[in-house]
């Protein structure tokens, strides 16, 4: 536990020396939300319907990128090699990362949803539930980023995993077309992609108020995906390498 917390602290300290990255993490999603609102200035219903979705998608994408690149950098700089010769366990390293970027994700989700709800006037019935799902989406992005970084040898490859992992999920999650209207193969595929459940949750949050069993189910599935991806990430981290 001490080593997990020390790792999370170290990752946040690294981030704290990089002011521009902090600004990007905190401000970028809010800026994009603002842009989104005024692009659909003529049809505010679109912002009302898709806006909440964006609150989940931006942190998911950004955290995926940030985490996978950071982890690949750890690998290429030789610090991972050193860490693996210390008493630090692989699970502790992965959890430390998850925790640090979870904190960053929390700040990001708070900033972007506060901007959307109170500055841009996005109408949601249960703001805290929107925040909750935004944070869970961001943590999911972090967890998938950690998992995928195992397959990237260079930062260049890690960046290109973003379109590979994120864009198909975006297309299939029900944001652009209802999942039920897709060919069966695609609909079944979307059933096993975590972002589908995030999109489903934000759709529900846009329509209803309160926190029903439907949302609880989405939340449980997303949390399960986070745990599975983190477990996978610590298993794919090899102590002995060729």
């Amino acid at each position, binding site marked *: 536990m*001490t*080593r997990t917390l*020390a*790792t999370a*602290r*170290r990752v946040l*300290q*690294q981030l704290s*020396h*990089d002011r521009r990255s902090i600004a990007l993490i905190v401000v970028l999603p809010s800026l994009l939300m603002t842009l989104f609102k005024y692009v659909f200035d003529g049809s505010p219903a679109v912002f009302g319907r898709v806006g909440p979705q964006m609150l989940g998608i931006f942190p998911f994408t950004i955290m995926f990128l940030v985490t996978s690149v950071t982890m690949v950098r750890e690998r290429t*700089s*030789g*610090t991972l*090699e*050193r*860490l*693996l*010769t*210390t*008493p*630090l*366990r692989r699970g502790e390293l992965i959890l430390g990362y998850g925790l640090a970027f979870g904190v960053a994700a929390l700040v990001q989700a708070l900033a972007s949803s506060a901007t959307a709800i109170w500055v841009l006037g996005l109408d949601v019935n249960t703001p805290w539930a929107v925040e909750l799902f935004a944070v869970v989406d961001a943590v999911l992005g972090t967890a998938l980023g950690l998992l995928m970084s195992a397959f990237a040898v260079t930062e260049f490859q890690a960046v290109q995993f973003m379109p590979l992992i994120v864009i198909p999920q975006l297309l299939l999650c029900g944001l652009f077309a209802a999942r039920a209207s897709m060919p069966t193969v695609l609909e079944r595929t979307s059933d096993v992609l975590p972002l589908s459940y995030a999109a489903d949750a934000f759709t529900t949050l846009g329509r209803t108020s309160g926190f029903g069993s439907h949302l609880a189910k989405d939340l449980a599935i997303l949390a399960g995906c986070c745990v599975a991806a983190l477990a996978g990430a610590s298993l794919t981290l090899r*102590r*002995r*390498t*060729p």
Partner: protein
Amino acid sequence: MTDPFAIEIEELVVVRGKNVVIPDLSVRVPRGCVTGLLGPSGCGKTTLIRAIAGIQRLRSGRVHVLGEPAGTPSTRERVGYMTQNSSVYPDLTVRQNLHYFATLAGTGEGAARAALANVGLQDKADALTAELSGGQRTRVSLAAALLIDPELLLLDEPTVGLDPVLRRDLWQLFGALAADGTTLLVSSHVMEEAGRCDRVLLMREGRLIADCSPDELRRRTGQTDLEQAFLTLAEGSAA
């Protein structure tokens, strides 16, 4: 301490891709002294050190460290490893780097301060590691390996790119650590550094061509200069 050897390697074979990096190597490194691992770049020094650190995938063979298989949780607490590239975080200050590695090793702030003093970097404690010179970064990396107060210290080319004064200071530090009972395995491709070791392992193309004291090396080859001694042995082993 029943076992007089810190490192015992039997019939080690390491293959990386299609290259046989270490074809068949057996060696025993005694405790409490400075053993130099010398040989030209690409001869397999780093691979051998990685095998001892427990992070190298082996084809076959046995690597025992401090009486246990290399890389077990208990040996990881007792072995310090400094990689060839200064593997510390450039975007942390020197102090933050050492604090993190000290926490992982379960040693305190005092150990971090002592390690910093050992490498002569007290005045740079709050500098960002990225802003240090290459030699200073190497010393931060060395300090990170020192601060766990290890029984076995594996140093991969720790003196590369350092000025002669600092190099001398570090070799004095290595000697002092060995006098306190630490076992050191120090790699270098500079033959004259062999003279500063208690024992020398000479490597060439993945094989050991000598395992003896520097004096014995001079005697056996009839050369006073260690560089010449290496050449004599290398040509002898090739023939």
